[in-house]
């Protein structure tokens, strides 16, 4: 791998992205480079420090069969090829207790006082390749993963038989360290399951097991391999051939997922009972070793990145692209692209393919000198602005400045404004307008929709990033819902001024829905919560006027929540039927009397 040495690549290992701001072409990034306590540039991996380190701890992912020191290298081919001190176990942070490695290191690479470093830089484009995690099958207690030593995960088998494994590639069973005579693979552990792990197929486990059986049969001719499966999914180029070879080598494929595993306390052999759906009902097998073919699950730490870049996920936790066919690797946030498993589980070939695609997409921006920013920003009418300063307070991006003393009108910093519309909605003097989503345009749409038979319609304001594409996905999925809904697109619920809702009620709308991104997914930091607050206030106002607050509703519907969208439309249609003509007429009367 020449990533570590490439002159154009600044490798920041053992680092975390702390903050990202800005926009396409101009992102500002802040990265925390965690202290390794070993100078990664100077370290020559001579190993002298390891010899003197007195602390021995079990090595990660080695089934307790191997150990390492508190100063260690994660694996032989690590990049950067440098040691690292494990903070938790090293004694050297107390100078009286230890300091052996620092004394020993000729190049003086070790510094117990090293601090985390904050690195800041600008970039024009971002590729998210944050990956997925390997599923931990502990909750599948019926397979005794934590109770029986001879039950391993497919990942553990990989490491055990890999070049970095303790056995240097030899397969042994943990309890007696002998080569097993029989081995069983259980497929789909943590995949395709509604209650545990993930509902999706993890894509790689079938082929990985087939590969394992081929390798095993090649090295240990007489090892008995059995695979317990639901379906074998061998859909790629050459994959079916692989599967056939495995079967030809005598690997037995049994269609059925074992209900449980028991252990023979004496031999430590494992007994599986399984309903063979192509055989004679319940069968029992005794095997030396069992491998749980585990799937891939979203990383627990992926939320922080998703939040920084306002990326949304499916209900399964996979990143949502703009369009599955037209722009499958583009994030909804302009200038951001996906590579690898964070978008969906995939094998190496597909990961590499997508990664090259993401690089090409990013390069299409980076190769330009300038990019255009959509003209969706706020503008101030200097004559109407009273310099009250409320817009400055509500703008999520601090994109507005006002000289309060000089009583000068508000100024919008165009490059910083993202166009959520919060200021326009909050301005009491109608002094702020949004380019391409101005009052006249939105009012015209409301008027048009409510021109005929308004009592039959459910007026919906949906935001551009979540609820509008969510409604699109309902269509793409061909789900059906009541025809009463009429959707008006706005960039963000932040744009939804109460005057639009009052206008609609005045024209006879039985019900108005505001629908947008869950506050945690809001594309404008916290604009959707500000919108929620405005609705809460509007409810009080309506009640004071004698209008049922129920007539105005809101719902947070993400781009993937098709079920929630349909359910909401069905419920609102039911509710609409309960709003009588008389009630609508009264509302109209009340609202045409009061001015504001």
């Amino acid at each position, binding site marked *: 791998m020449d990533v570590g040495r490439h002159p154009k690549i600044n490798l920041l290992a053992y680092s975390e992205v702390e903050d990202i701001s800005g926009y396409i072409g101009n992102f500002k990034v802040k990265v925390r480079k965690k202290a390794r306590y070993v100078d990664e540039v100077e370290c020559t991996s001579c190993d002298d420090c390891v010899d003197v380190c007195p602390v021995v701890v079990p090595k990660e992912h080695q089934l307790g069969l191997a150990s390492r020191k508190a100063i260690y290298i994660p694996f032989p081919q690590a990049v950067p090829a440098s040691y690292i001190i494990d903070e938790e176990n090293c004694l050297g942070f107390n100078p009286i207790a230890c300091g052996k490695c620092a004394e020993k290191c000729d190049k003086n690479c070790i510094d117990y006082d090293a601090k985390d470093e904050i690195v800041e830089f600008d970039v024009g484009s971002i590729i998210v390749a944050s990956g997925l995690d390997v599923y931990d099958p502990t909750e599948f207690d019926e397979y005794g993963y934590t109770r029986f030593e001879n039950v391993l995960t497919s990942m553990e088998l990989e490491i055990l038989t890999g070049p970095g494994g303790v056995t240097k590639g030899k397969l042994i069973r943990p309890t007696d360290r002998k080569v097993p005579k029989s081995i069983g693979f259980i497929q789909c552990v943590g995949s395709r399951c509604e209650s545990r792990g993930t509902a999706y197929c993890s894509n790689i486990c079938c082929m990985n097991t087939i590969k394992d059986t081929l390798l095993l049969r090649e090295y240990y001719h007489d090892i008995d391999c059995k695979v317990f499966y639901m379906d074998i999914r061998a859909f790629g180029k050459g994959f079916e051939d692989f599967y056939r070879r495995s079967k030809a080598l005598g690997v037995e494929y049994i269609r059925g997922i074992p209900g449980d595993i028991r252990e023979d306390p004496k031999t430590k052999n494992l007994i599986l009972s399984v309903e063979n759906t192509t055989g004679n009902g319940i069968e029992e097998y005794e095997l030396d070793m069992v491998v749980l073919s585990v799937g891939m699950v979203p990383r627990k730490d992926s939320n922080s990145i998703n939040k920084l870049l306002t990326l949304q996920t499916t209900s399964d936790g996979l990143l949502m692209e703009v369009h599955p066919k037209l722009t499958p690797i583009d994030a909804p946030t302009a200038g951001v692209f996906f590579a690898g498993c964070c978008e969906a589980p995939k094998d190496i070939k597909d990961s590499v393919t997508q990664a090259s695609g993401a690089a090409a997409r990013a390069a299409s921006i980076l190769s330009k000198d300038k990019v255009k920013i959509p003209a969706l920003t706020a503008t101030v009418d200097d004559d109407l602005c009273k310099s009250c300063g409320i817009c400055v307070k509500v703008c999520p991006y601090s994109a507005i400045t006002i000289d309060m003393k000089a009583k000068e009108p508000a100024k919008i910093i165009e490059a910083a404004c993202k166009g959520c519309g919060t200021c326009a909605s909050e301005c009491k003097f109608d002094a702020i307008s949004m380019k391409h989503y101005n009052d006249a345009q939105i009012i015209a749409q409301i008027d048009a929709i409510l021109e005929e038979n308004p009592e039959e319609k459910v007026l919906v304001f949906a935001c551009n990033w979540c609820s509008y594409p969510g409604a699109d996905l309902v269509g793409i999925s061909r789900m059906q819902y009541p025809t009463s809904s009429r959707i008006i697109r706005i960039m963000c619920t932040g744009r939804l001024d109460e005057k639009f809702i009052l206008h609609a009620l005045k024209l006879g709308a039985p019900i108005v829905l505001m629908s947008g991104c869950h*506050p*945690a997914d809001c594309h404008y930091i916290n604009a959707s*919560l500000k919108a*929620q607050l405005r609705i*809460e206030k509007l*409810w009080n106002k309506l009640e004071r006027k004698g209008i049922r607050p129920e007539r105005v*509703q809101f719902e*947070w519907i993400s781009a993937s929540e098709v079920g929630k969208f349909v359910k909401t439309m069905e*419920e609102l249609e039911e*509710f609409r039927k309960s709003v009588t003509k008389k009630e609508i007429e009264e509302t109209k009367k009340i609202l045409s009397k009061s001015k504001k």
Partner: protein
Amino acid sequence: MATESDFKCLRCGHWFKTNYEKNKPEERTCPKCGSNSVRPMPEKKK
């Protein structure tokens, strides 16, 4: 300061209690029907 307050779901009519802080909205969901249209009802009687 967050205190407990009454809330009313404007979708299904269900009343329940949860944390509330004036002018500090957060995402809330009706425990009965799952709607987000839940109205804070501090100092209000049923």
